[in-house]
């Protein structure tokens, strides 16, 4: 019922044009190796400042959906995944290309991606009102537990070094305390600079860390390789459509799997792709199983439906709890905040109509993506010919003007320069960037809810232990913080025994 009204809200040619533009941009961004979904959404976030909420958010959602799918194009044609999430697609995709079935592989990828999006958005539509309803009764101690849980996933997105991930997180939390204290308005670490009173806006920091520093890294790689534009050797022949019906069970299963993985904070599209791929292989019949990695269409279907399933899944905790599960979700959260929508349990009360219009828009985005993917594939293979030098320049110019557009002042532009340079050195030394952004978003929430809770309890920490939901969330947070350490401990012990 509500969803129907949502579709009516889309009946505006401008919205549809923006959706198509978003998906197109997304596919282009995703198909270029080195450009990720996170960078794409961060780069175009400032573009939405002047727009209304629905068109602005749908443009970014189009980019998000499109770029996750777009990653499969370079993976299939060149064996270089356009995004980390497409690495699983490359295994069977490139094998099919070598067998002359590039066109079939590309079409399987786009249909599986569409499947993944639609199923995961349907899951989002059914689950998120329920989850928001439960969370509606949360007060300060529970909200603190939630923020802490959101922060605890830093350990699972830390990458190679847990300590470095945690350091990035804590530095992010400290940066988040700059500016006026949310409870007493006392200016902290402002050095008497009025520009620092509001604290650091996390959007320019994100642009700096995810776009500018990536551009520097691309430039460095370019200097090392000195390679010209990539060559697409594969010819796009006919599609073997008769394969498709056989793939539907795999696509459906992987879509659900991807959606569920997407809901879990900390597990992103790359994890979903590999888990779905492994599951599809595990449940395959004997002769079929041996074909995985050698050009099995099911491998592409599973990986693509799985990584695309994350898109809707990741929106569940993001919208209903205000917790971004990965870097793209964090950027999307920024997009909502810019539009004056605060994701969290109240979102269906304060912006219910808007939510259903967005859900409807996401379903349309998925369909648009399939159509564009099927019709435009020749165009997207041409994108791979765009010289890297031009890409790097465009990214830096867009970052600059985008940062300026946030508040119409140059301070934010200097922030992207600083964050870009710092982000470059962080990456060189193995410090992940996403924990900083998560900390900037969840830090203020954690701090103010913690202090609010202690005001409620007149200073007694027992309030966190006696309220069952708060206690459970805090326990979960501690558990998820130490999971990587426990996993490592048991692995080491097993290895020593074996």
């Amino acid at each position, binding site marked *: 019922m509500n969803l129907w009204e949502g579709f009516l809200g889309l009946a505006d040619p401008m919205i549809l044009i923006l959706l198509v533009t978003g998906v197109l941009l997304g596919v282009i961004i995703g198909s270029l190796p080195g450009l990720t979904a996170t960078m794409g959404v961060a780069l175009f976030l400032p573009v939405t400042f002047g727009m209304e909420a629905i068109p602005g958010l749908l443009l970014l959602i189009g980019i998000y959906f499109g770029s996750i799918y777009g990653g499969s194009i370079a993976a299939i044609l060149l064996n270089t995944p356009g995004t980390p999430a497409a690495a699983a697609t490359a295994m069977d995709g490139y094998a099919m290309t070598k067998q002359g079935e590039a066109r079939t592989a590309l079409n399987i990828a786009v249909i599986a991606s569409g499947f993944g999006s639609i199923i995961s958005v349907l899951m989002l539509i059914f689950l998120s009102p329920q989850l928001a309803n439960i969370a509606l009764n949360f007060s300060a101690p529970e909200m603190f537990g939630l923020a802490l849980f959101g922060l605890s996933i830093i350990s699972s997105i830390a990458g190679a070094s847990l300590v470095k991930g945690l350091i990035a997180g804590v530095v992010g939390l400290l940066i988040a305390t700059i500016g006026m204290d949310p*409870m007493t308005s006392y200016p902290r670490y402002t050095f008497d600079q009025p520009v620092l009173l509001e604290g650091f806006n996390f959007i320019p920091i994100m642009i700096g860390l995810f776009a500018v520093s990536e551009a520097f890294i691309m430039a460095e790689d370019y200097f090392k390789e000195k390679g010209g534009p990539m060559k697409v050797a594969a010819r796009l022949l006919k599609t073997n459509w008769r394969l498709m019906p056989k793939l539907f069970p795999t696509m459906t299963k992987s879509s659900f799997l991807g959606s569920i993985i997407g809901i879990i904070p900390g597990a992103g599209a790359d994890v979903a792709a590999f888990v779905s791929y492994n599951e599809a292989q595990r449940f395959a019949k004997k002769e079929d199983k041996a074909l995985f990695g050698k050009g099995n269409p099911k491998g592409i279907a599973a990986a693509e439906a799985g990584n695309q399933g994350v898109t809707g899944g990741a929106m569940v905790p993001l919208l209903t709890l205000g917790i971004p599960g990965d870097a793209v979700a964090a950027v999307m959260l920024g997009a909502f905040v810019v539009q004056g929508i605060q994701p969290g349990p109240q979102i269906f009360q304060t912006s219910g109509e808007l939510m259903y219009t967005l859900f409807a828009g996401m379903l349309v985005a998925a369909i648009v993506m399939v159509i564009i993917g099927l019709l435009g594939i020749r165009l997207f293979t041409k994108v791979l010919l765009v010289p*890297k030098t031009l890409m790097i320049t465009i990214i830096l110019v867009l970052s600059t*003007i985008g940062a300026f557009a946030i508040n119409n002042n140059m301070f934010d532009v200097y922030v992207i320069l600083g964050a870009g340079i710092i982000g470059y050195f962080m990456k*060189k030394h193995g410090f992940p960037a996403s924990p900083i952004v998560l900390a900037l978003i969840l830090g203020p929430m954690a701090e103010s809810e913690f*202090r609010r809770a202690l005001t409620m309890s007149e200073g007694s920490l027992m309030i966190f232990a006696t309220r069952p939901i708060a206690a459970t969330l805090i326990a979960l947070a501690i558990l998820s913080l130490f999971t990587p350490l426990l996993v490592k401990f048991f692995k080491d012990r097993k290895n020593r025994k074996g």
Partner: protein
Amino acid sequence: MKRLHANHIISLLLLVFAATAFIMAQSFTVSSGAAPGPAFFPQVLSVLLFVLAIILAFQTPTDTDKRLNLNVVFIMIAFGVYVFLVEPIGFVVSTVIFTAGYLLLLGERRWYFIIPAAILLPLIVSYSFEHLLHVPIPHGLLY
């Protein structure tokens, strides 16, 4: 004592950062009843960072290519110059210079590629932002 490596230097920087943050927070004295005041969170975090920085110092860095590529330094400086030119001389003119300069710096030598790019990129971007998205852009002295 092993050789000084990257983690030692980073750790030292973080220790100084954490200590400074802690000491500065000492002056955040505003009473907020029974609940912790504005200094509480920053101080807890500074202590946490201090401990993590010490742990970092005892870890051996992973062996990757850590040599600073001089080309990348030029790339960063050129972008920095551009960023600081945007306000005084204007977005469009500075982007023309930046695009041409950057493509040259990155090793592009085809003039029939550089010139159209340096003209079209600033025009398309400034037109889209100003007229399609209604976001003002800085024009400075020269436009």
